[in-house]
């Protein structure tokens, strides 16, 4: 492997790697704004200056490929002056509104200013200001904070496949915006906020809800479709504030769709059923877990009810259900459901050119691998049906005498049920899901279960236990 020297350290590289990447491997962080590994290289922000031996001018690390024997300095006086110059230019027109900016604490401009800028401001010019346009429900625009890195333009053009964010006019007058007050059309708009290195494009959903540094972060996988985009749930206490994509070059690269990003909201929906309930005259009646478990046992013990399981459940949950059925209800039917009209991975496929898949559940592949048969119709007719799912799987039309549901449901989903035992959402449990490529990925518990929700395993254990003894709720 070829080698080069970065700040005196010898580093190996593969041909075509730029100095930002190579330096990172040597433990040297090179500050960037416009560079993003998932977007084309434009070398516009002029922050990533390095000194390369035998080159008279400072070079931009993002656009300089490592070559054999190259000697690079990232910390010389010349480099420091260059970077400080860029920082000074960028802050000339950037409002000092960090105290009320949502990006504060996770802002590249703030971090690089701290790391490479000057403590003094030499400019005394009036700052450039803009009137912002409405960008739609996902993104809040604040052009005053923009540093013209054009990541958003390139994201739209190169990733989202829609050239809707553009630079209007030129030079100091540039406005980076959509035209004629049009709102963003892409279904991937949230990424605009992730890649924005300042508080110019922020998430409306997250705005003013929480300071970034107060959030705890849990690495998990999106349950929104069979893609399995890697992401982080950001939460404080047991409240989720947002989800952001994590890099996984084999799955989602750096991105995620808005549906997946905001999917967490259903877990915190005020209409989510979080206590055991039974249908009663004039509505639902809250019952104790003990009564719920006993009630179900009464209905199904020794019977062969039909089990419908969502392909949004984890491998562990599905395996547990299978074992439970084999022991307690041998011969009973078990079928998986998830996306109307889509019964197998063979029918699954890309919904767009970017990430989204046709299967709206995350573990269709896993359910299939466990040998569970699909529900072939969107309607099921049976005597007693037990539905178990995690809230993503789209319920079929159930035509049965008794319908018992275990899992995550909103009040709106519950009309077909006679009894509900509340289960855990993807953000409340650990588990394994298998994406459309066959890659096994892990869900991680970020927050505690809401209300009186219990894990499926616990429910199955209680159903198996002859003397259902339900302890205190969590």
């Amino acid at each position: 492997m070829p080698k080069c020297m970065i700040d005196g350290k010898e580093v190996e590289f593969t041909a075509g790697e730029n100095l930002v990447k190579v330096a990172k491997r040597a433990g040297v962080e090179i500050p960037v704004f416009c560079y993003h590994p998932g977007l084309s290289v434009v070398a516009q922000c002029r922050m990533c200056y390095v000194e390369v031996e035998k080159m008279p001018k400072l070079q931009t690390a993002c656009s300089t490929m490592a070559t054999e024997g190259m000697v690079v300095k990232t910390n010389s006086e010349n480099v420091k002056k260059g970077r400080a110059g860029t920082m000074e230019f960028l802050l000339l027109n950037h409002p000092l509104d960090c105290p009320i900016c949502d990006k504060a604490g996770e802002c590249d401009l703030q971090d690089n200013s701290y790391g490479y800028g000057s403590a003094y401001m030499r400019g005394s010019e009036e700052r450039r200001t803009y009137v912002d346009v409405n960008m739609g429900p996902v993104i809040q625009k604040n052009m005053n904070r923009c540093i013209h890195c054009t990541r958003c333009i390139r994201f739209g053009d190169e990733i989202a496949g829609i050239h809707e964010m553009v630079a209007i006019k030129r030079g100091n007058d540039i406005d980076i915006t959509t035209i004629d007050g049009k709102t963003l059309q892409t279904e991937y708009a949230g990424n605009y906020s992730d890649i924005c290195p300042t508080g110019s494009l922020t998430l409306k959903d997250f705005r003013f809800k929480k300071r970034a540094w107060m959030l705890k972060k849990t690495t998990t996988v999106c349950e929104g479709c069979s893609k399995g985009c890697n992401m982080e749930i950001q939460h404080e206490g047991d409240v989720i504030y947002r989800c952001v994509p994590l890099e996984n070059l084999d799955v989602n690269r750096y991105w995620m769709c808005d549906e997946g990003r905001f999917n967490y909201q259903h877990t915190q929906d005020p209409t989510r059923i979080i206590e055991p309930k039974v249908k009663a005259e004039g509505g639902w009646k809250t019952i104790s877990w003990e009564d719920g478990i006993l009630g179900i046992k009464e209905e199904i013990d020794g019977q062969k009810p039909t089990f419908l399981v969502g392909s949004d459940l984890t491998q562990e949950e599905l395996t547990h259900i299978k074992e439970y059925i084999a022991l307690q209800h041998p011969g009973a039917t078990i079928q998986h459901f998830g996306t109307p009209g889509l019964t197998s991975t063979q029918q699954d496929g890309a919904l767009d050119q970017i990430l989204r898949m046709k299967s709206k559940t995350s573990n269709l592949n896993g359910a299939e691998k466990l040998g569970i048969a699909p529900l072939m119709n969107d309607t099921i007719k049976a005597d007693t049906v037990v539905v178990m799912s995690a809230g993503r799987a789209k319920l079929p039309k159930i035509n049965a005498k008794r319908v018992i549901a275990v899992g995550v449901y909103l009040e709106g989903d519950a009309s077909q049920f006679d009894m509900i035992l509340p289960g855990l959402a993807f953000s409340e449990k650990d588990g394994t899901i298998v994406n459309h490529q066959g890659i096994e990925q892990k869900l991680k518990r970020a927050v505690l279960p809401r209300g009186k929700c219990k894990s499926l395993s616990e429910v199955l254990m209680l159903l198996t236990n002859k003397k259902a003894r339900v302890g205190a709720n969590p």
Partner: protein
Amino acid sequence: MSTPVASDTLFVQHFWKDANRNLSYYLESMNGYQAAKRVLTEMTPDQVIDEVKKANIRGRGGAGFPMGMKWSFIPKNSEKPKYLVCNADESEPGTCKDRQIMRYIPHVLIEGLVIGSYAIGCKHAYIYIRGEYANEAKLLNAAIEEAYEKGYLGKNIFGTAYSLDVTVHRGAGAYICGEETGLLNSLEGKRGEPRVKPPFPAISGAFSCPTAVNNVESLANVPHIIRMGGDAFAKLGKIDKSGGTRLLSLSGHVKKPGVYEAPAGSLTLRQIIYDLGGGILNDKKLKAVIPGGSSAPILTADEIDVVYDVEPLMKVGTMMGSAAIMVIHEDTDLVKLLLRITKFYAHESCGQCTPCREGCHWMESILHKIIHGEAKPTDLDLLVDVAQNIGGKTLCALGDAAAGPVISFVKKFRPEFEAYIKGQKRYA
């Protein structure tokens, strides 16, 4: 050294008469299209490139890169189409020579395109002409039509297997499109923002194909090179590394402004100003000269005994650029002039890279404060420091173009700036 005579010049004797733009004039008085015929029927592309290399011709657009070398960078075995693009975006303030070629002898450019295209294997050449030259674009299109009619363009030129199309592409008002990669983006229907290099246009230029971009005057010299031979053309130049003649755009405070022509390196700046230009307007005293378009660092009246060519000018800290000489007499307010120059670069900054977008505007605003008596004493050094933070730090040469004048004006005429700051002088 003396004032050049017609035999030393290749172009100017054909300027200033509208009738000269007809094909008949070109054929009769300039041996029109004979060089192209010889090239297509008797020479290989490599022989053409060798001849141009021998001619020692530097690009006439401003950077002065050897033209034959540029052509030799175009990969020969690439499967992709190759393009020759003529840079007719003449926009460096002070420069107005290419316009005369296109107005008066457009066919010499077309013939140059035929030869150049053949040499690099191009089948479709473009002339990217600045939007303001609307009438020149019409004249070029008329000449191209004539050339198609007579078989100098189109299919099987001179009965050979070689075919070439030429298309005139109009810009629309952007200085930065004179930068070759900005020009290529503009040709492709994009904003004229310069590209990151590498890749250089020779590898990935117009439409991601190998491309040579040559200035109008450069290409117009090519028929002459073929006609007289590379060696003879090189000998026209009176200085090493510069063959041929140079068209000089002489403007500002001279008695006889105009486009002149002289063998490369044959005159000093003083001779150009006093012998060609007839001296200073109204017999005023010379104060300064901007010798190579507005981006060239300024020279004082004491610095004009320099031979006017690339290396000698570089030695005195400035540049020849596009050979546009702007003469400035004693009554001129250089602070005001620098503000005007800086305002131009700020206006023309494409805005993609930070130092240029923010810095040019900042410099303009500091100069504005200076001239209006609102500046602090430290602002002058701040101005120079800002210029230094732009120079050499930008994606394309516009940053250097903007920084150079600021640094040199302040260095050489500092008291004029200080007079404003101290309130000894007021803006009129």
